């Protein structure tokens, strides 16, 4: 296929100009008049002398549109309707410009006209819409029972579950898509708006949860602890002792749902020793203080006291007596 003297862009612009002069007609009738016109214009352009334009050969797009209208036996629309469409036409110019730009873009990629590409991609959108709906349903079901279905944290269980939920919704979406092609413009617009809302809901939820995997959120118990009942001061650290009274180090705490329990603030630990060389040499004790696994939460105790008794008398603690600072007396009283 050789290029025509007028060029495909010129043909598309002529066609769009004709379309503009038929803008008073209902969309269905207008599309009917224009279907296949571009191919016809390409044939005409191929027969033109070099340097000639479609305007010179066929007359202005306005004249062409009037002839098309007459040949189809379509009268001009009543004045009131034309006025309404005229107001709408004010907004159509930028839309027409965007259509031309979109056409050029898709044609340059060898994908034909943008409108044609959009029609071809519709079934793909219907499938995607069903999958998104399925993912949303799965998401709300799982988050509503968050923590009670730990098996859902396994992607080999989660993904087939989403697939099972999505399958009937994809079928429904395809069915809806096919049927909506026969609906009125208003019906199709409503369907499109519903699809856009679905995508908006998905975008508002998925990035924070499903795409990042099941949320293992920290539980800040201190935020929920009523201050009025805070008889013993703020909990700044946790000391866990074995039954022998031995202080356990590197301990993780989890609640009944498997969420890490975060108590205290690791940043509040005393700064490294004054001697910078001691830090550089990597005091094992200090390194241990700063080591926290993001999924497991804090390691307790957060701040290791300077001296910890390796053993304490079992009778001595832990007791309910609070201490002002955990490092002051790292005895069993500190629990």
């Amino acid at each position: 296929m050789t290029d025509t003297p007028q060029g495909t862009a010129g043909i598309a612009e002529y066609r769009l100009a004709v379309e503009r002069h038929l803008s008073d007609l209902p969309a269905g009738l207008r599309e009917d008049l224009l279907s296949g016109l571009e191919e016809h214009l390409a044939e005409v352009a191929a027969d033109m002398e070099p340097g000639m334009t479609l305007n010179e050969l066929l007359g202005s797009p306005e004249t062409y549109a009037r002839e098309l209208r007459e040949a189809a036996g379509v009268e001009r629309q009543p004045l009131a309707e034309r006025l309404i469409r005229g107001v709408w036409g004010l907004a159509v110019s930028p839309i027409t410009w965007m259509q031309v730009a979109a056409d050029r873009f898709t044609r340059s990629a060898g994908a034909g006209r943008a409108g044609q590409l959009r029609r071809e991609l519709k079934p793909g959108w219907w499938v995607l819409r069903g999958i998104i709906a399925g993912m949303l349903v799965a998401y709300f079901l799982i988050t509503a029972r968050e923590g009670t279905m730990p098996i859902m944290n396994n992607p080999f269980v989660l993904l087939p579950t989403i697939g099972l939920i999505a399958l009937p919704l994809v079928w429904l979406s395809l069915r809806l898509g096919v049927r909506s092609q026969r609906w009125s413009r208003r019906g199709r617009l409503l369907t499109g708006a519903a699809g856009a809302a679905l995508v908006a809901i998905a975008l508002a939820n998925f990035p924070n949860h499903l795409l990042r995997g099941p949320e293992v959120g920290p539980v800040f118990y201190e935020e929920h602890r009523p201050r009025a009942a805070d008889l013993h001061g703020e909990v700044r650290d946790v000391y866990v002792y074995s039954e022998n009274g031995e202080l356990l180090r590197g301990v993780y705490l989890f609640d009944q749902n498997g969420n890490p329990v975060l108590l205290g603030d690791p940043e509040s630990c005393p700064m490294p020793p004054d001697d910078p060389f001691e830090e550089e040499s990597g005091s094992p004790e200090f390194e241990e203080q700063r080591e926290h696994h993001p999924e497991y939460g804090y390691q307790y105790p957060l701040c290791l006291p300077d001296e910890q008794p390796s053993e304490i008398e079992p009778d001595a603690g832990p007791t309910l007596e609070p201490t002002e600072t955990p490092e002051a007396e790292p005895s069993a009283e500190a629990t």
Partner: protein
Amino acid sequence: MLGVERSQLLKGLLDIIVLRVLETEDGYGYEILRRLRAAGFDELGDASVYGTLRRLYRAGYLSTYLQPSDSGPHRKWYALTEPGRKYLAEMREAWEDVSDKMRRLFDAEKGQA
């Protein structure tokens, strides 16, 4: 010549004109227009012919096929179908009937004058 009236008259005859041009030989869009202009229908525009071709095709009076072209894209050729030939015959009969009556009417007026 009363251009508007003639144009209105031709509008009613577009079907029979286009079908007649295609009766003996298939043709494609712009080439059909050339044949019509060669036959003296200078006022007919491409849009009128194109619109008529589409309408006749929809009605089943024309069929189409694509032919490669040396100078551009494939061309859509139009050919008369059997219903198209039958429709043309009916239209021609009607036209000749009306035409005869019109001629007699005008001749009678001349005779009275």
